[in-house]
């Protein structure tokens, strides 16, 4: 089971792979849409890659609630448990 720090680091790598953003830019307080300029299609790709990496399930209807990096890290952390 990954720690929150490991989840953030893994998520940052996934975001980097999908968008080219530097991993350092993926901070907990950042909003995916407004701060990181990630569109809905890229968000889905990031979600699917997170599912594979952290072995969790993130339902379609949950994705709209993942507005910030913190939201995503918390959701993955809870889903692991």
């Amino acid at each position, binding site marked *: 089971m990954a720690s929150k720090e490991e989840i953030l680091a893994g998520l940052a790598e996934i975001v980097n792979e999908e968008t080219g953003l530097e991993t350092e830019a993926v901070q907990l307080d950042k909003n995916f849409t407004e701060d990181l300029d990630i*569109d*809905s*299609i890229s*968000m*889905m*790709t990031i*979600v*699917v890659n997170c599912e594979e990496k952290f072995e969790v399930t993130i339902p*379609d209807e949950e*994705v709209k609630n993942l507005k910030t990096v913190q939201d995503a890290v918390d959701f993955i952390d809870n889903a692991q448990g």
Partner: protein
Amino acid sequence: MVTLKQYTPTAYSRILGMGAYRPDTIVTNDDVCQWIDSSDEWIRQRTGIVTRHRADADTSALDMALAASKEAIEAAGIEPSQVDTVLVSSISYPYLTPSMSAVLTERLGATPAAAYDISAACAGYCYGIGQADAMVRSGMSTYVLVVGVEKLSDVIDNGERSISFLLGDGAGAAVVGPSDTPGIGPTVWGSDGSKHEAIRMTHPLTDIRDAEAGKPRPFRKDLADPETGTMPEDAPLWPTLRQDGQTVFRWASFEAAKKVTEALEAAGLQPEDLGAFIPHQANMRIIDQMAKVLKLPESVVIARDIADAGNTSAASVPLAAHRLLQEHPELSGKPALQIGFGAGLVYAAQVVILP
């Protein structure tokens, strides 16, 4: 004890010829932005679509199917009268019955060929190729005409922004017949009806009848006022398409993409054996994602007809294949991996040798 005679099987089938019809009217992204609040850049970035073709009021789905079919039959080197089965896939033919196939068969001069329509949305053409392959090899049919045709402009609402701006009109056709060598690999096909609402019509046709009878309109979420959440009194009577884009993207890019791999394996090929990859032209981002999943080498030509044609549902795979053969004649005789996927949700994938 009697023994029934059976069909005499044929070892192999292949696509003998293809045809296409693209309507003349071009709808640009700037045109689309007159109807929805968007921009050329936004549409290109999220969909890869630059233009789409749309048929005028006087051109029917049947007209487009006829044009594509004639070209396919001629390219196959046979006469229309030799076609003994006609399969048409469309979601936009405005009659519930009789089938477009039956009428098309008569217009082509192929009567009394067996004729029926396939309702498998964007997967319909690949469903048809799978059926045609089985029919020819079993001996049930000799020459099967498979058509994917859509006049989607008849079933869209230009003012909504879930799917209408993606869609275009057109027709593609193929003739499948006997072959001395294997020309169509096993079809990997299926459905997932648990996601039937991911791509849908706003309401059933019976709402029109009931409204004409003066009954109050039942609540339909896709027609509800986004601010009040209630059905407007002037809600359109004509049903149109809607989709949940994120759900479809996820399913197509990651679930349907696995079926492409299965079809390649079922045909006993490796990615480097392919000449072309021809996925349903739904969204350039889905095409890119599928290509990534497949780990296609650069030698494989990827069909990207969507940029000019938009998403033409059942017509998209044959239109894209037809264009590839025009632009890359060297692909003739090479294996192409194709997949159709769409409303249902349904999918069908197979490797075909391009004619």
